[in-house]
């Protein structure tokens, strides 16, 4: 058994108007990684390279121990893939799709597929073209989940789903993780989903990874500090300051290396710490993107 399910090393892909630049990342088996990025940041390209559908210009990609794209056929036998731009055949029924996929994957789990049909409230005799958007997404997920893949790769799985369907989908993803040999990589611009269920989080912007870490580390180290400076005091220099806002004597700092000792250090320097706010993943992501972009333009 491999300890690492997905391994990217120095992966680049150059398009006329977009470059994926020197991407390296590692996804340990048994974890969920959330890939967060704005539209056009490179999430889909990354996932397509992972699946062997797009060939990298440089760098090494290994998925479940297989070299991509060369061994994609073998790797895909153990991957369940659903992407936002994936459609099923409109003129065929869900039951036909299930039989088709079942004929290909020896590990297809029919009782589980039937459980999912009920749980997702899907009718197998219905033609795909008669389904709503949410039902189509759930149908595609069913086909991916019931193969019992070792790796699930989901490009924007919850986009356009209503809240009930979203929770159903997230619940099924978590249920997959009950088996610690299974791994999930999913991309989303909904940071709430990612924050809820991910172990590892990777921020991607303009074709580069700008941060990749375990979620608790993100949530622990990022803080917004609201200070009150005494008239004669200068802004104390703190480690890991990513953004300075606020005004004059009421500065607001964002740091990515927060430590409780910081508070007393500030107080000693004549800056009273009014509040230490934890930040949501969305706030962390936005500040991160802004500060990187500013550095790039300087």
């Amino acid at each position, binding site marked *: 058994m491999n300890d690492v399910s997905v391994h990217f090393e120095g992966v680049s892909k150059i398009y006329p108007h977009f470059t994926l630049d020197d991407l390296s990342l590692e996804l340990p088996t048994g*974890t969920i990684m959330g890939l967060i990025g704005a539209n056009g940041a490179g999430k889909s390209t990354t996932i397509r390279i992972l699946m062997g559908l797009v060939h990298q210009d440089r760098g090494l990609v290994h998925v479940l121990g297989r070299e991509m794209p060369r061994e994609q056929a073998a790797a895909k036998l153990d991957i369940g893939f659903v992407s936002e731009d994936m459609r099923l055949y409109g003129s065929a029924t869900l039951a036909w799709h299930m039989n088709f996929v079942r004929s290909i994957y020896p590990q297809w789990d029919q009782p589980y597929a039937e459980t999912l049909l009920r749980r997702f409230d899907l009718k197998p005799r219905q033609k795909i073209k008669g389904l709503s958007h949410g039902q189509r997404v759930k149908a595609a997920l069913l086909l991916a989940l019931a193969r019992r893949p070792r790796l699930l790769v989901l490009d924007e799985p919850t986009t356009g789903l209503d809240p009930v369907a979203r929770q159903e989908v997230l619940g099924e993803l*978590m249920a997959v993780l*009950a088996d*610690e040999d299974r791994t999930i990589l999913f991309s989303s611009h909904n940071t*709430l989903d990612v924050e809820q269920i991910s*172990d590892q989080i990777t921020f991607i912007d303009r074709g580069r990874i700008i941060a990749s870490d375990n*979620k*608790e580390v993100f949530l622990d180290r990022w803080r917004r500090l609201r200070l009150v400076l005494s008239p004669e005091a200068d802004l104390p220099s703190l480690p890991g300051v990513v953004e300075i806002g606020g005004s004059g004597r009421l500065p607001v700092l964002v740091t990515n290396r927060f430590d409780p000792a910081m508070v007393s250090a500030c107080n000693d320097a004549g800056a009273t710490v009014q509040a230490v706010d934890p930040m949501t993943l969305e706030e962390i992501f936005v500040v991160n993107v802004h500060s990187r972009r500013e550095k790039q333009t300087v």
Partner: protein
Amino acid sequence: MHSDLVISQTDGRPMYLQIMEQIRQRIAVGDWEQGKEIPSIRQLAVSLRVSVITVKRAYMELERDGIIVTQQGKGSIVASDPKLGAKLYDQELDKHIDRVAQLGELLGLTPKELASRVREASDRLTKEYS
């Protein structure tokens, strides 16, 4: 295994803290008995729909506090410390006292004034029960 823990998205505190607090409560009131097995990290993560790493963190901190014991490969049990209930209430008390101290500072009370207010409260309670 179904757990009856509830994670709130609007609760400002991190999810791992919410999990810790609810487990503490369940142990304090005796719902989860000493020496008994509690859900595994993965089981709890799946039933709460939160990431494994979040539950793992809550369990690690609970273990550091001596509230649960995790055995490699065997899952976790509630620590069989006879004074555990008392200890948990003690921790709870500490938290409230911290809050009292904060509010006192906000109102500009001296520690002495604060102490006398606590004594008054205590006296009131004794009278009610006598």
